[in-house]
């Protein structure tokens, strides 16, 4: 984290700029309009998270994508602070889906660096094991009966495993390292 903050404050090194990066992002669902961002800053102004930390700035993320600052974006754990409230999407005057761009960057970070926050690794592993995002304790399953609730449906674990495999995520999950929790006090970004 500290490293990412320090990097963000240094001038960009031209050899690390990837002018084609934005096209890579634009191919991902919902991220196609990144070119249209004209940096008005509505997304940051209306961002629920940016209200409470100057660490997360969606406008800056959008600009960094346009400029091709791939090395600073991919694996930057500030990306994990988006709540996906989608206010930025609804408020953007250019129709840029900022939260979809953040999602694309998160997906890309996971894939290319083989790491993700613990919580997501845990969620994904649970889905693979049970079909549900939480492993249901036996006591909870039993209590349903007492409460007059129907039995909890069993998932089709074969189908779930097949989807993990087909999307290539089974492999990612198996070897993924976990990231520490994001510390917002580590520093700030401008803009």
């Amino acid at each position: 984290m500290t490293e990412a903050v320090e990097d963000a404050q240094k001038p960009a090194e031209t050899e690390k700029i990837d002018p084609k990066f934005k096209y890579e992002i634009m191919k991902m669902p919902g991220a196609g309009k990144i070119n249209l961002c004209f940096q008005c800053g509505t997304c940051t102004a209306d961002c629920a998270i940016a209200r409470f930390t100057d660490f997360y700035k969606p406008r800056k993320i959008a600009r960094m994508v346009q400029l091709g600052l791939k090395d600073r974006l991919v694996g930057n754990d500030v990306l994990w602070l988006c709540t996906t409230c989608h206010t930025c999407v609804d408020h953007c005057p250019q129709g840029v889906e900022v939260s979809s761009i953040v999602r694309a960057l998160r997906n890309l970070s996971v894939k290319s660096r083989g790491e993700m926050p613990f919580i997501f690794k845990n969620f994904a592993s649970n889905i693979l094991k049970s079909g549900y995002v939480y492993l249901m304790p036996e006591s909870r399953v039993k209590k349903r009966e007492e409460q007059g609730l129907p039995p909890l449906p069993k998932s089709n674990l074969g189908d779930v495993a097949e989807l993990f495999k087909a999307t290539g995520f089974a492999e990612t999950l198996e070897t993924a390292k976990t990231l520490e929790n994001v510390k917002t006090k580590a520093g700030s970004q401008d803009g």
Partner: protein
Amino acid sequence: MAELEYFFFLGCLIPYRLASYEVSARKVLAKLGVKLVEMPEFNCCGFPVAPVNFDLALSLAARNLCLAEQRNMNILTLCNGCFGTLNEANRMLKEDKTLRDKVNGYLRQLNMEFKGTASVKHLVHVLAEDVGQEKMKEHVKTPLTGLRVAQHTGCHLLRPAKRVGHGDNPEDPKILKNLIGLTGAECLDYMDETECCGNTVVGVNEEVPFQMAKEKLDHVKAIGAQALVTVCPSCHMMYDFSQPRIEKAFNASYGLPVLHYTQLLGLAMGFKPEELGLDELRVKPTLLLSQMQT
């Protein structure tokens, strides 16, 4: 009127932590003539894995949609996250052929194909659009007159507006307010009503979302609401389950009961508090219930 019947998508958080929502929802829906058909072999909607692999999230969502398509049924869910994910996947896959072909490529392994013939509704849409206020009014036996509450609709019922549908205004949501009005309770306006609960990032950072939730609780308390009403298990976890920790973190004291809308409606329909799982709330609504009896 034809019988209202839906494929019931329960999701994960409700059976894991919030049986009170399921219990109260099943009671009120049955009384209102809504039939819930259990959904065998469903899996997580896909929401929790969208940040790490959106293809997988879409595929998990699409598999659930295919189950509904195969039975020629529409989905009802109680959860904003499940609604947002299933509904968004449904719309994206219908509109974007390239994406649909890709996801159908994954689904082929399961002998499934997404066709886009099912629709997805959240509980509030079923109540407001399909049951309708006339029928709901008929069932309100003990109106909650004098009760003053605030609502938190939650982001994934409202945004992104272009994909959610159902016509609510994300800047000034009205559907849940109107539904609360039908119970006889007064739904108060407060500052920043549409502010996100922040619960989705609690797993990676608690500091920021707790500040967001604190602000919400401050605003709701400031207008003198006796309870906050939610329709999303995730938002509910933030304001009810985490409320003691938020109080501790900010040296504050709220004691604000957070009710599932189905509990509020259930009370107005004449169900007893214990039938609606009100005793399962973390912030006990003892004072609220005693105030209601007087």
